[in-house]
């Protein structure tokens, strides 16, 4: 149940929409990568969760980040967001290395489950605190509540929210700074079909305007309608990277590459 930022446009065919966008996006697509991950390794004790992972995310494109449960997707996304320190390797966002200082909320918006709101706090208070921290005006809170269609529930405690509402609150928080880059960890989880469709529309519209999206998902059929590029990892390692146009069936490729056919 997400409202697109530029007004909801009911695209009947998302591939048609992407074809329409492609004509006006040459400059973004020719630009350098928005995110560069090089040799990223993350260990927790003796356990290696992400292993020498290298990939890039094109500016102005939606990149799907796929892998089975426990493949290291969330850990890699946390490293991209600056929330987890790499054991080895580097992550650069818009050309700047992600170090101990996390990227600016106006440049990178992040939603990694759970939504990061205290269950006893209202959605509006949660977003207001984040807006204050980011130096954003109060009206932006109302705007993202509107985009996430949470305005009627904004005064309610987050603990009383459904999974879908918490997801929308997490997305609203990621959108607060109207960032150039969105990093989203399974954003469609818990959303109803209408919400998933509106999320897809919103992400495509952002890409059409030159924005960049890196998202992980297990909903492969849905993601195939949204993404331009595909990155697949298994056991923390890269197994595929390339445009979605080169993939006939995302699900078949995913299962083949990650050994899911035999599992």
């Amino acid at each position, binding site marked *: 149940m997400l409202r697109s930022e530029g007004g909801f446009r009911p695209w009947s065919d998302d591939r048609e929409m992407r074809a329409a966008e492609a004509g006006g996006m040459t400059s973004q697509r020719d630009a350098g990568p928005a995110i560069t991950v090089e040799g990223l390794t993350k260990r927790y004790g003796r356990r290696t969760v992400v292993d020498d992972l290298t990939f890039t995310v094109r500016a102005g494109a939606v990149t799907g980040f796929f892998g089975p449960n426990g493949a290291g997707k969330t850990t890699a996304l*946390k490293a991209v*967001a*600056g*929330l*987890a*320190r790499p054991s080895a390797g580097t992550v650069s966002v818009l050309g700047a290395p992600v170090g*101990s*200082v*996390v*990227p*600016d*909320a106006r440049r*990178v918006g*992040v939603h*990694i489950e*759970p939504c*990061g*709101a*205290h*269950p*006893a*706090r*209202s959605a509006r*208070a*949660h977003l*207001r*605190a*984040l*807006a*204050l*921290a*980011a*130096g954003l005006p109060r009206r932006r809170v109302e705007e993202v509540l509107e985009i996430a269609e949470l305005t009627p529930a904004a005064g309610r405690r987050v603990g009383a929210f459904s999974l879908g509402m918490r997801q929308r609150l997490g997305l609203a*928080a990621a959108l*607060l*700074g109207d960032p150039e880059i969105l990093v989203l960890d399974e954003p469609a989880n818990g959303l109803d079909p209408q919400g998933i469709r509106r999320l897809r529309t919103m992400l495509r519209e952002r890409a059409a305007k030159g924005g960049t999206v890196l998202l992980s998902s297990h909903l492969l059929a849905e993601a195939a309608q949204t993404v331009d590029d595909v990155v697949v990892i298994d056991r923390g390692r890269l197994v595929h990277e390339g445009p979605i146009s080169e993939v006939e069936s995302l699900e078949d490729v995913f299962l083949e590459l990650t050994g899911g056919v035999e599992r």
Partner: protein
Amino acid sequence: MIGLLRGELLKSVTTRAVWGFAAGGTAFAVLNAVLIAVASGTLDEVPEKKEALSGLPVLLLLWGLVGAAGEYRHRTAAPAALAARRGRGTVLAVRIAAYALTGLGLALLINAVAVGVALPLLADQPGPALTSGQVAGVVAGNVLALVLATVLGAALGALIRGPVAGAVVLLILALVVQPLLSGAWEREANLLPFGAADVMTGGTHDTTLTVPQAGAVFAAWTVLAVLVAVACERRRDLA
């Protein structure tokens, strides 16, 4: 930085916990004043009368600890760090400053209630009445102890990152370890955080420390805890 501080302040007062601790603190102040001034018989010495005004630093230590550790328990620390455009250590330092300010508000409220309830009751007691200077001295010690306790609690909460585990550790230290140490070496135990806080709030009299000296001891422990917490925050991942 001011925006971040305002954001952290807003967070600290938009859960029910702060109101619970405010209610608990004022209830303790009333109970303590009534028990000391009325139920404990004749109070004819100034130190005895001062006890009717004493605060309970462990309560605000618990408030700081539960609040700061809850940031990790509820995963609210990560979006705050993402929004703040600052290093994690800076965000934690500002969060602790916000807890210091809320702790100051709670300390002033608790002490206002304690003074308001205790002074009329103490007026009926024999012996010298507390002068306004003595009352101000007790309140100053109490307020400083309560604020430092909040800050120490927030630093410990950031280090331990689990509200329940932190609360258990804290209560064991306050209710078991400190009394045992005080029983064995009372004066030396006043150099520990809980002992120094006791001196500041008039909870113990067998000490060579003055209230300002005890304040300096408690402040030193608190600053050490904050520095360790900030240094650790810089190195640790946020969930």
